[in-house]
């Protein structure tokens, strides 16, 4: 089980702020995870339509789409940040 957390318009489009899911064995990288999530419904498809617009953090650290998920406990998906 891994906890997924969503922010800003990713959260709005998916329709929830977090959830726990079981990852299929063939989901090894962040990119794999995004592809997998898109099969979970219309909200996910809409949120993740442009994968390069999605930033991902594993256990609260920024990561690349090519990075392995390893034994992450929390994975966050969000749009480009606009703080500051």
């Amino acid at each position, binding site marked *: 089980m891994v906890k997924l957390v969503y*922010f800003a318009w990713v959260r709005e489009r998916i329709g929830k702020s977090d959830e726990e899911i079981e990852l299929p064995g063939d989901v090894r990288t962040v990119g794999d995870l995004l592809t997998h999530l898109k099969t979970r419904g219309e909200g996910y498809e809409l949120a993740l339509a442009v994968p390069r617009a999605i930033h991902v953090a594993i256990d609260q*650290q920024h990561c690349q789409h090519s990075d392995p998920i390893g034994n992450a406990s929390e994975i966050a998906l969000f749009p480009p940040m*606009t703080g500051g």
Partner: protein
Amino acid sequence: MTPAPRVKVQTEDFDLQKEIDDLTGANSNIGAVVSFCGLCRDEQGTLDALELEHYPGMAEAEMTRLAEEAIKRWSLDGVSIIHRHGKITPGDNIVLVLTASVHRQAAFEAASFLMDFMKSKAPFWKRELLKDGQIGSWVDAREADDDALERWQ
């Protein structure tokens, strides 16, 4: 002696002079303090407020990592970063970066570095609340902000 970064994520406003006094404290070898305040603009009067969402936990962790990177790169006697979240009205403070050093160049460069990275790496998102009562759109990231990172490579 390496200073410990001071990092806060909060809804309330800050007082700049107090934050500087807290940062410089008993250290009388500081010659330069640079501050950056990021303020909410009114977007030609159309904006009622900004609503700032953040990723609790990661926001503080990322701000601490950025501050530690600045401390590694420049000779600094102190770094403070405060980022507000929640509803912020035009003219109000959103973010504060403070750097203290013996000489001015390190303080200026580190503050500029920190703001460039805060813009693109700190997990905060702004949404516009409009004067006409509508919830406006999420603010788009500026390409100029990504470009700004390149000069620090």
